[in-house]
């Protein structure tokens, strides 16, 4: 079953399309990454999907329910962590969790149990008595995310949930989310700027720019499709003086002289270039100290995809 289904989705403000004809198909139990630069329309899409705002046109169904006709039925089944902080300043961390559970009509015993579980899972035990207004940005964010797990849900929207978190807390959160998906077949709609996160967490990724989805695929498929150039680095420390002349006819490689020399190959045919270089080095008795292949990461793909999209828009205009 589809957790999220959207067709020809538009949202306009003052005749500007913040969301410009988006289609979405997200299956149950999937972690779906939604990437895009600032102002690309990520948060607007989340607000549309969580029924906070209505589309200008188009159709959206969340958990099989129409967002325009039955918004409340959807909101009862989803969890939402919005991009901006949300907290009750005067409540302590533990009371925030407990009261949030009460708002969701969770019985007292379950509320108490979940509060303890989440305080531990989100490393909040030491600050459980601290008031929200006295917390750091990262601590407040952890409370905000933890709070959402006080209630049961089928679909969770997370809008840049790791903003302000240190690397340890970030990894803990990502692992917690992965476990929840496994345990409860939860579907997660996840927006982020941190591409390594999306790569680590998401089954599928959509890249959005200027309100339009440019591409949707799994991280591996995206790498195959867009990450055609591979990078290989060779470090040598002896007989480096002649390297410049020896490799001057080899394309797609550059030499950096440091303690020895580093030859960087960045090419769609990295293997072929590598073979040519190895042959030359061998013929000239130049020993290799180190050789490493750097895999294509999502960041490069993101920059390429968004860059290409901006360039094609500029050409059209």
């Amino acid at each position: 079953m589809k957790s999220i289904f959207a067709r020809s989705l538009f949202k306009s403000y003052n005749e500007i399309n913040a969301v410009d004809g988006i289609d979405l198909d997200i299956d149950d139990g999937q972690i779906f990454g939604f990437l895009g630069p600032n102002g690309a329309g990520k948060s607007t899409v989340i607000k549309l999907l969580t029924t906070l705002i209505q589309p200008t046109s188009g159709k959206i169904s969340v958990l099989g329910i129409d967002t325009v006709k039955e918004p409340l039925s959807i909101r009862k089944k989803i969890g939402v962590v919005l991009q901006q902080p949300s907290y009750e300043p005067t409540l302590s961390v533990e009371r925030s969790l407990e009261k949030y559970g009460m708002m969701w009509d969770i019985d007292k015993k379950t509320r108490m149990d979940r509060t303890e579980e989440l305080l531990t899972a989100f490393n909040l035990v030491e600050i459980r008595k601290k008031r929200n207004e006295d917390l750091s940005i990262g601590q407040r964010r952890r409370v905000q995310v933890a709070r959402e797990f006080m209630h049961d849900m089928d679909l969770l929207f997370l809008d840049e949930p790791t903003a302000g978190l240190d690397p340890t807390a970030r990894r803990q959160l990502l692992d917690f989310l992965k476990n929840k998906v496994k345990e409860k077949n939860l579907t997660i709609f996840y927006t982020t700027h941190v591409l390594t996160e999306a790569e680590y967490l998401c089954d599928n990724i959509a890249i959005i720019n200027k309100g339009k989805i440019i591409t949707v695929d799994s991280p591996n498929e995206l790498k195959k499709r867009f990450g055609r150039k591979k990078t290989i680095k060779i470090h040598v420390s002896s007989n480096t003086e002649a390297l410049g002349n020896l490799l001057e006819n080899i394309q797609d490689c550059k030499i950096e002289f440091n303690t020895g020399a580093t030859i960087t190959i960045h090419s769609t045919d990295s293997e072929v270039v590598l073979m040519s270089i190895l042959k030359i080095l061998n013929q000239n008795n130049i020993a290799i100290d180190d050789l490493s292949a750097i895999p294509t990461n999502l960041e490069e793909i993101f920059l390429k995809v968004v860059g290409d999209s901006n360039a094609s828009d500029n050409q059209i205009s």
Partner: protein
Amino acid sequence: MHPIIRLVKRNITISVNPGFLIWQVIFPLIWIFVAGFAYSALIDEVSFGTKNLSYPAFLASGMIGFNIMNSTLISGIIIWNDRRHGMFEQIMSGPFTRSNYILSNITTIAIVGLVSAALIAAVGYPVFFQSVEFSLVTIPLIVFSSIVGAILFGSIASIISARLRSSEGFNVIINTVFIFFAFVSTAFYPAAGAPQPLATIFYLNPLTYLVDIIRAGIFGTITEFVILEMVVLVVLASILFVIATKLLTKMDF
């Protein structure tokens, strides 16, 4: 549990904190027992309807209306705080409708207003008990006017919360409104005897109507003028309530 009750519980939890209680209890106590008795040297008696009241009794009865205004303005600020701290969007993305949210705020305001009124009535009772003249008509009148007053001032706070976005603007407006309501009214001093322009301005202030009605209820001096004040209060509260509800309904994200 009904969503409105859940939201009311939440509203009361976040509103009732030590600071709020001190403000609600200590501040009126100082007015009644310090200012009230200290000013007795200057103000011997205050004429109210057919009765002459001691100044502490006059002030204590005025503080009931004052406290309703004060507490409900603070409760009305829940909406402002919810917007400021991101809770409005969070609640609206949860299992609640806008109507649930609006009605829960109104209910919270009414509860806080009534409790405040009861609190000050209890605290001030030793001061005004000698002149009290309760009847089957006056007690319901006091309760009804307290609820109407709470809705009126809660609506004003809600309108300000819904319209303003900057903290500076909000603080300036809410403090100005508070000072006008508190001190340009008959809560602390009678309109009779004040310079005519000031006495007229007193009656541009809904707190004057609320205080007059509550005093009349406590001291059993209900006149035609008090009934007219009641009508004005109800009409004004209804208009402000409708405006507040419309603004809250249209509040965007």
